[in-house]
């Protein structure tokens, strides 16, 4: 089905559905999301805030915050189902088989322990190593992620590191037990542009060397363009388009992806106006019938108002849009004027 059919996928997500039960009814935050990640592959997941990209990542590492819960679907890692594991079992997988990198390096490190102690603790939790061997491994990891004077830095506390260096420590922590998959949730968003480039280059190099697959969750298309092999574009809890990164960026198939790509200011020609998508992503309580993007879509037809499209072949990618179906979108319907109130 996907390009990487020659080797079995490392991670399979099938029909994932994440719900939030609230007093006013159940909110559907992630709706019927399916994708694969091949060993060693970098899958970028982009979308605007509230598209469900971080929730999908959290579900994979088993850290969905209640009341959010997986209502349907399955997640398989190396063929083994991991979404319904008891907490203790999942704890062993998380860290050992799946590493995690979060947005803010300051909150993902414990301020009361030296980084060496945190690394050693993580290593010894997952690998049967003596204290001395674990410390040596911690040192090697710090050197590998490019921290200068690693011997001294091992005993420093997180506040003694700068933002970029802290994120390097977090990457070292994620790599501790040699995981097969890293879920990186906005790993560069909190960093300055010049540091961002360093961290992306580091992440890319390490994953290539270790053969680690990465699920890179971000809102920054630039980061995806430079890092990912494939990209999934999420909108209102669903995958709008998924395909090889070059095709999605250069030949977007879904009207939302097209608008999204156009709205990013580029250094090519300077135009009078940027392409803009009017309106905003619907709130979870107000997701329209049919295609969730239809109120903002320039190409919408009658069918888009009633029938929800699933992913279908579109160019080299797959897009959830009736434009790519034989039957088409039906009679055209003008885009809704963006009036509130």
């Amino acid at each position, binding site marked *: 089905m996907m390009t990487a059919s020659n080797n079995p996928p490392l991670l399979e997500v099938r029909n994932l559905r994440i719900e939030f039960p609230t007093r006013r009814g159940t909110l559907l935050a992630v709706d019927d999301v399916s994708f694969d990640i091949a060993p060693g592959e970098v899958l970028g997941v982009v979308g*605007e*805030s509230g598209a469900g990209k971080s929730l999908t990542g959290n579900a994979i590492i088993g850290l969905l915050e209640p009341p959010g819960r997986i209502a349907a679907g399955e997640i398989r890692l190396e063929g083994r189902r991991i979404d319904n594991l008891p907490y203790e079992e999942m704890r062993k997988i998380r860290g050992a088989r799946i590493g995690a990198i979060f947005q803010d390096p300051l909150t993902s490190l414990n301020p009361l322990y030296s980084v060496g102690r945190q690394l050693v603790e993580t290593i010894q939790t997952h690998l049967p190593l003596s204290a001395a061997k674990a410390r040596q491994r911690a040192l090697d990891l710090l050197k590998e992620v490019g921290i200068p004077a690693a011997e001294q830095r091992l005993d420093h506390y997180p506040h003694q590191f*700068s933002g*970029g*260096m802290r994120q390097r420590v977090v990457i070292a922590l994620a790599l501790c037990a040699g995981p097969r998959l890293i879920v990186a949730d906005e790993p560069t968003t909190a960093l*300055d*542009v*010049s*540091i*961002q*480039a*360093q961290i*992306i*280059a580091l992440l890319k190099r390490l994953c290539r060397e270790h053969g680690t697959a990465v699920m890179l969750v971000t*809102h*920054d*298309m*630039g*980061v995806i*363009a*430079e890092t990912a092999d494939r990209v999934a574009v999420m909108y209102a809890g669903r995958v709008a388009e998924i395909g090889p990164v*070059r095709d999605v*960026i*250069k030949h977007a198939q879904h009207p939302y992806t097209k*608008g*999204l*790509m*156009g*709205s*990013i*200011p*580029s*250094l*090519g*020609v*300077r135009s*009078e*106006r*940027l*392409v*803009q*998508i*009017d309106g*905003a*992503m619907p709130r979870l309580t107000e997701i329209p019938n049919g295609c969730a993007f239809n109120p903002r879509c320039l190409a919408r037809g009658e069918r888009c108002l009633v029938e929800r499209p699933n992913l279908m072949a579109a160019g080299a990618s797959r897009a959830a849009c009736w434009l790519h179906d034989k039957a088409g979108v039906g009679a055209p319907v003008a885009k809704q004027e*963006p*009036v*509130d*109130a």
Partner: protein
Amino acid sequence: MPEAPFVHLAGLKRYFDVSPPWLVRAIEGKPRQIVRAVDGIDISIAKGETFSLVGESGCGKSTVARLVVGLYPPTAGKIEFDGHDMSVRRNQNDMSALRRRMQMIFQDPFASLNPRWRVFDIIAEPIRAFGLSSDKADLEKRVGDLLRQVRLTPADGRKYPHEFSGGQRQRISIARALASEPEFLVCDEPTSALDVSVQAQILNLMMDLQRRLRLTYLFISHNLAVVYHISTRVGVMYLGRLVEVAPTDSLFRRPKHPYTRMLLDTIPDLEMTGRQRAPMAGEVPSPINPPTGCTFHPRCPFANDRCKAEVPELLASEDGMVACHAIEERRLGVEERSYGEKPSA
């Protein structure tokens, strides 16, 4: 520039005292610590232009914005607005007449709107404060017009800020800034907190308003692609000083200062031209303890002994200004850059 600049900053400095308390200093024998957030900046902004300041966090660009609108008093230097020195003491009426003509748009639309006020009152506040309208019908009409100008509806005035999305809130901030009919807007990262598709809406709106109302912008941002789209001229800041000022096209196509080149390298390549961005080594040093000479020398591949000792001055170079010994001595040539042209869709 032939005519007098609309906004003129001359030798502007702002230092912050970040010393530990007196007693701690006395016991530990530590000296005072001063952060030179803005360390001598000269900028002239002509009427109707968009001047952008770019730089990484901690370079002092937001401090400049706050100095210009008077939220901080400067440590030294002068701010002239349409020929008036802003530091001269004036009576209340004259001062507010000047103040009315400049407004600010803040970064975070979730923090800059009072959550307990209705949108109508938020937008009406500058009108009331500057006494621009006294009767109720006129006030309602003005607020309605302002809301329409930012593509909201007069009915939205009855709502509270929490009922709006981030992009809509930033529209409300813009409407509030426009309420006093200013000529000069200081925009401190107005789109950094927004999603890209919403960012495009706000940038388009700002450019439309500029054309229609003949506004002058001082635009602060760390996003070079955004700056490229909106600016007439760009100033690049590093550790409290300007390192390069140039018209937008020259800055992007013929960058001179090594730091400018480095910043341009960090723009992600969306055209997929295969351009490799060389990640720049090192980080921004602490402004408490900046390096000697040219503050960029520890990260600069072209630095020599002179760069370590002597602070470079901002000197004219082609159609811009640049503060770099290597450029001045012609050790370093100007680099031509081109960017993948977008295929016309």
